[in-house]
């Protein structure tokens, strides 16, 4: 199902201004001087049944967003509304059942010394299901649902392959019948030949159970295939948001152009891309104004002064760039090879970092 899924109904999940700051130095009695702005005012809506893709590199805040949505860490500021009700971190109750997570590493996401049947069955016990036969039947259903043989419920995780372990993780998450699944790089650690299997399974399950997904990945190809809409994150903020096809065909933010062109591809020759200068910035000392301006190929003076807000440049297309409409020209130049990699500016150390 491609295209936007906005309806007149209200969104299933509404995140407003979600912020999470970590003190950079902690300890007994030491006051923290610098702060890591892991999440810096993130807002978006999520509609029932859609797949919302989240793309970004390390330090962009993807993992923090996941932890904050699960309320494993209390947000510093901002609100999360689920089905119209404001979620209170102190009284999570039913929210825990509604939102579940699938992790990246199939080798550490399952408890190594629990049998698979127990791993999948424990959530049922936690939420009140009683009766060994009831639980057993439900576990068997769940294992079948993800394409595993229920007879293997006595085995341990190490006896399964990576792809099979991810399936176990999915079965575990589905045990509590959630409405929203956070897929945190769920296929990134799998072999390419196995990724497709798991992606197909995820699509099947989405149709069968009416699930909503937030699909986080660094691999743009996968995100494009799976998502209805995509959000691009950079240093704790969403810098672009829009429908998957449109965003990848005609991005409205230079960082998106850079990401798209840097992704290894069999179609496109390697030279066709934006070469980003310098290093990714440190979250403790973000640049002034637009956090991308030190590396941006189209930076202007105003970019270092004013932080661009995330505004809707076209219906459904959001971008946090002062010159969003000019980005299309940049994109065109990359595609027609006017922008290449022959001139190689040196790699600079990030600003604000002192030596040792």
């Amino acid at each position: 199902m491609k295209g936007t899924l906005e309806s007149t109904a209200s969104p299933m999940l509404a995140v407003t201004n979600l912020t999470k700051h970590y003190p950079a130095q902690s300890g007994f009695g030491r006051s923290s001087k610098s702060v890591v702005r892991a999440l810096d005012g993130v807002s978006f809506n999520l509609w029932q049944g859609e797949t919302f893709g989240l793309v970004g590199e390390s330090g962009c805040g993807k993992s923090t967003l996941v932890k904050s949505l699960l309320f494993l860490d209390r947000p510093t500021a901002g609100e999360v509304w689920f089905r119209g009700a404001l979620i209170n971190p102190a009284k999570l109750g039913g929210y825990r059942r509604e939102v579940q997570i699938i992790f990246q590493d199939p080798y550490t996401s399952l408890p190594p010394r629990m049998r698979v049947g127990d791993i999948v069955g424990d959530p049922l016990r936690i939420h009140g299901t009683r009766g060994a036969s009831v639980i057993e039947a439900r576990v068997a259903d769940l294992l079948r649902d993800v394409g595993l043989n229920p007879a293997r419920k006595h085995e341990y995780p190490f006896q399964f392959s990576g792809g099979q372990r991810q399936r176990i993780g999915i079965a575990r998450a589905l045990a509590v019948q959630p409405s929203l699944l956070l897929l945190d790089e769920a296929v990134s650690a799998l072999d390419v030949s196995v990724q497709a299997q798991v992606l197909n399974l995820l699509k099947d399950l989405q149709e069968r159970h009416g699930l909503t997904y937030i699909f986080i990945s660094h691999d743009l190809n996968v995100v494009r295939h799976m998502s209805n809409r995509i959000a691009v994150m950079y240093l704790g903020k969403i810098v672009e948001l829009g429908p998957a096809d449109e965003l990848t065909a005609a991005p409205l933010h230079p960082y998106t152009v850079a990401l798209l062109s840097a992704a290894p591809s069999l179609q496109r020759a390697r030279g066709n891309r934006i070469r980003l200068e310098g290093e990714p910035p440190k979250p403790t000392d973000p640049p002034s104004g637009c956090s991308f301006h030190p590396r941006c190929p189209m930076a202007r003076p105003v970019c270092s002064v004013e932080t661009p807000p995330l505004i809707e440049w076209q219906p459904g297309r959001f971008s946090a760039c002062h010159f969003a409409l000019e980005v299309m020209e940049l994109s065109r130049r990359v595609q027609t090879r006017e922008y290449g990699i022959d001139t190689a500016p040196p790699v600079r150390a990030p600003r604000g970092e002192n030596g040792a």
Partner: protein
Amino acid sequence: MPLWIPVSSTDLALIANPINVAGPDFPGSEPTTLAERGGPHGIRAVLGRHKVATFGLSLFLAIVLVAILAPIISPHSPYKQNLGDNFLPPMWSEGGSATYPLGTDPLGRDLLSRLIYGARYSLLISACSVLFGSLIGFAIGVVAGFWGGKVDTVLMRLGDIQLAFPFVLFAIAVLAVSIERTVWQIILVLGISSWVLYARVVRGRMLTERERDYATAARALGASRPRVLMRYLLPNVWQVIPPIALLNLGFFVIVESLLSFLSLGLSPPTPSWGSILADGRQFMMITPWMALLPGIAIIVTVLSISLAADGFNDLVDPKLAHGGYLRKPLPGTVHDPEHETGDCLLTVRNLSTRFLTTGGAVHAVEGVDLHLRRGEVLGVVGESGSGKSTLGLSIIQLLDPSGRITSGRVLFEGLDLTRVSNRKMTSIRGRRIGMIFQDPSNSMTPVLTTGFQLREALRASGPVSRERADRLTREALVAVHIADPDRVLRAYPFELSGGMQQRVMIALAMIRNPDLLILDEPTSALDVTTQAQLLDELDRIRRERGTSVLFITHDIALLNGFADRILVMYGGEVCEDGPERDVLRAPQHPYTQALLSAVERASVTADGRLAAIPGDPPDPKRPLPGCPFAPRCPYVMDICWVSKPPRVPVGTHHRAACHLLTTLKELPA
């Protein structure tokens, strides 16, 4: 990986079968001979392989048996005094008698009986102290690790105080003041003084496990904190205790005798080896055996525990079984008369590498052929179990101790690297062949500056003056496009970003201008944009210096526009190799075709599904007699299960190993 020693049977199985893919049983999948499997697995077989450890274990069990059966086997009561028969020597000495086989002590008590009962008390004290200490230590470690914060700090400082507190002072404080020193008081002293040993390790383990994904998942599922602790964390934490406890057991036997020496041991007449030893000390001149015999008993007990604990160590860590870290060159000539050098820098012929594990032999690489010319880039691509990393390590001769090259040759500029001496190989590494690994944060030591490590690399080829070294290292960093090399030279590796670290690694590898650079997934740990930058760098360097590159990766798309030739591996064997354009545009092997369509995500069915390859990557422990791709191949034929497909040419310098191609060739035109 956290430092931990697994002990349970699940752990043993885990070690023995790291990649045990339970897939459908296909014909010919069972290993053929016992030797292939690396030996049987039953208890008796395991004991058979560890003769020394089994000996130690049996000895210890015998001593425990003696202690348990003391009332039955001891000839006299240990308390019965016979003043008329005191100071008798053992029966083999002059004056000894068979009634008192090992002689008597100053009060005429039979020494043998006292030693037998002494086993009881010594082992009881030791075992109970270990139990007591480990339980307290475990509890405190769990609390400190799980709660963290101030609780953790307070508990750990208490532990520091405990460690700093002189043991003897503590012993005196508790024991000297009591008139009657019982077994339980001694257990108290030993237990309390040892809890820190366990607490620290348990805490460390708990801190690690607490952060793991499965613990987070449990919380996200709604498990309460006590439940996460009990059901998820504790089962993975307690395993650190048994190894420490075992060695502590032996140690406490000695400590108990130490206490007796200080007159803080058991009150007479209770016999323990330590108290007998202490009594015997006074009469060393007259009756030396009174001190000697308990001493021997202590030595034998502690030795048996140590032999058992140490001897069975390789069950929990297979790498220890193969001892020697030193590579042994294979027998044979170093120069191959059949090999024509031409402009081929590297030729690998029929290379096979195996790893010997307790779970069986792992066939990592089977019959691989490749060649690499000067200035060429060869991309080796494969998934898990393909053997690509092992191939790289086999070429540069840096295999784990458990790895063996079982056949083939690695010819580098005419020299067979599998057969050169260690000394020669060391001089080749770094100077003529460089290697870069996946995770740059693990490739450099964090306690030395990058400048130091670069200079060290330079000095490996001979002494270099400090000014020259500084100049060369600076140039090396400039060559990889680092803008402020001086700052980077002064920095420690952990202060640099991943991309910067990997650039430093490239500089390090290139500093002596090697002819061949092997890269094992150098960009997998990096962001997409950094990855692209680094590939540009590598490309530029190799063009400037004419270095040959062997680029190992799991991502075939990276090789587009980067590699000159591509070699595709599956299940330890080569499926296809040829010029980059041909392999990417016109792949001939079904696996290459499937891989490319999976990567491109191009084949999407009407309902939005991808064309997936069914099944899982192969298990290197169970190699098939036929083509490794047979279980997953859409074109599989009967012959594919039974015989290995030969490599046939399918284009200019382009070969593929598939029965389909041989069959097609045989069809009439």
